[in-house]
């Protein structure tokens, strides 16, 4: 049995409990998403559902490096980000079910999750449209000198949108504390990023805005975490924005309605073989940092949490019709 890994002076080596927590968070995301898919098929969830399955290492790796007061501005494939941030599965599932106890009081749905107390500032459906908001939050924290940095998460589909370019330029010229994290899962809905991008190596675009950039293996939790640490340190040190491209893959379709004509099944299988949760678990087991018994206990805990989330959502009331006009304006 390996002894407990000690934290180095730079705080770079997480301890056993921290590792277990990272694994648990990835497992929670996976189980939550699988359950959400099931609930969608049972019509408990309406609209669009964009699953994060396969990308768990990016959310958990990156978000685990933030401090509790930092901000996250994400896009519509965000359940994994929300869970990684610590939003409770019950109110998350309730939001997907459209209940009044949902994180956005049933007004937002899957694509518009908000938890201001945890700095989770949405949840947006316009590809690239949320990026200027991240820049603005960073402007506020820079002005107020409150030390809060912003993690802005977007996909490969966003990097050709005008607002992407404007946001990178503005954050860079004003030296704002934004970590721009591109989750490159190789497809913008059904379109291979290489078909529509003059520069498909997305991190290379950052140099056009004088922003330091890295590309990282998004299936490797520790690699994502290490890269995110560098990015967060850079931003928090007042040096301006940092750009990370995490190459990853979604095991399911773009949304529940996607028949996946545009990608070949062999490719999907190749990526599934790089399952980030399995990869991290095997790493921990190999290093003696987790036992089989502990893994099973984590799995049971996650299963219980997700089932409890469904129970909570099912038993929650819907917002009443008379509340239709609530929240249009703040008094």
């Amino acid at each position, binding site marked *: 049995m390996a002894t407990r890994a000690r934290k180095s002076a730079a705080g770079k080596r997480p301890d056993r409990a921290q590792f277990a927590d990272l694994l648990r968070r990835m497992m929670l995301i996976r189980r939550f998403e699988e359950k959400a898919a099931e609930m969608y098929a049972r019509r408990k969830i309406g609209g669009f559902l964009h699953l994060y399955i396969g990308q768990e290492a990016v959310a958990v790796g990156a978000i685990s490096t933030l401090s509790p007061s930092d901000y996250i501005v994400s896009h519509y494939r965000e359940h994994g980000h929300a869970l990684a941030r610590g939003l409770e599965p019950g109110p998350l599932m309730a939001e997907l079910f459209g209940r009044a106890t949902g994180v956005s009081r049933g007004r*937002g749905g899957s694509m518009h999750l*908000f938890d201001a107390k945890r700095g989770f500032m949405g949840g947006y459906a316009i590809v690239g*449209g949320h990026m200027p*908001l991240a820049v603005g939050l960073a402007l506020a924290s820079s002005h107020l000198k409150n030390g809060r940095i912003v993690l802005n998460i977007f996909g490969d589909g966003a990097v050709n949108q005008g607002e992407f370019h404007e*946001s990178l330029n503005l954050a860079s010229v004003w030296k704002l504390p934004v970590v721009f994290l591109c989750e490159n899962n190789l497809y913008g809905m059904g379109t291979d990023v290489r078909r529509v991008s003059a520069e498909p190596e997305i991190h290379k675009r950052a140099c056009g805005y004088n922003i330091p950039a890295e590309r990282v293996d998004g299936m490797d939790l520790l690699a994502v975490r290490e890269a995110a640490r560098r990015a967060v340190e850079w931003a928090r040190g007042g040096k301006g924005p940092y750009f990370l491209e995490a190459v990853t893959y979604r095991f399911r379709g773009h949304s529940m309605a996607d028949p996946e004509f545009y990608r070949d099944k062999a490719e999907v299988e190749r990526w599934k073989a790089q399952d980030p949760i399995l990869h991290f678990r095997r790493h921990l087991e190999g290093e003696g940092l987790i036992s089989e018994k502990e893994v099973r206990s984590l799995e049971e805990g996650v299963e219980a949490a997700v089932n409890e989330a469904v129970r909570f959502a099912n038993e929650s009331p819907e917002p009443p019709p008379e509340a239709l006009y609530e929240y249009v304006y*703040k008094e």
Partner: protein
Amino acid sequence: MAEITFREALRQTLREALVSDERVVLMGEDIGAYGGSYGVTRGLLEEFGPDRVRDTPISESAVVGAGIGAAMGGLRPVVELMTINFSFLAFDQIINNASKLYYMSGGQINVPLVVRMASGGGSQLSSQHSHSLEGWYAHVPGLKVVVPATPYDARGLLKTALRDENPVIFIEHTALYAMKGEVPGEEYHVPFGQANVHRPGRDVTIVGYSGSVHQSLRAAAILAEEGLEAEVIDLRTLRPLDIDTVVESVKKTNRAVVVEDDWRTGGFAGEISSLIQERAFDYLDAPVARVCGADVPMPYNKRLETAALPSEEQIVAAVEGML
């Protein structure tokens, strides 16, 4: 009381906000070193420095979006867009983000942002610099749309806008910047949703806002020579809209003309007309008339441009047509 220009009323109000509230930050193209393309922010960079008065790149979408984000993060930003015509580049931010954030977050996050825009034509600036599209913003739930017509209202409404917890679209008609008017020295503000009767009358109600208020007043002077007394109402804000004042007036005069610079078809004057007929149908002696901008892109040629914009003569003709 002092007589100052519309521009100066705005400038003083912004300056006081910068002095009294550390959270106020101005952002916009050429608002700093250039002094503002319409001179509203002249001197403010020198007084408050580049962190409070920020010259931006030409990135309307990101600049407005950053204003929204900054408001979400606890600042009270004021974004200047050079004209309403350029604001379309920021439409996504204003409509998909600013107007909806409070609602879709279930009341968690609000956007206390003021976006100032110059509007209006008449200077031969042609099709992409000359339109007035505040009606499009007035269409959107979640926004407030403010259209001052006098220096008094410019200051009073801007004060209210700066305190509002919601996104406010603040429209400044370019023809009014040099207009002088009385502005009190003591503290005051003008609330939203309160129209102003500039000129009482009993024969017809003329409803205008922003630039069209003054045309309406000139038309009223012409009508007075013909023995017709027009009541001229200045809406002051399009959203919230004080339709009650308009309806009360129409109940007295039985006739209404709505005047605006914006294109006739689908313009906000249609909304006002519809509200009048819903609330005062039995009082109307004639259909509500609209005097609006012509349904054309704004031409460069001076005579054509004048013909494309509403005039006193058109207002007078509309009134005479309903007698």
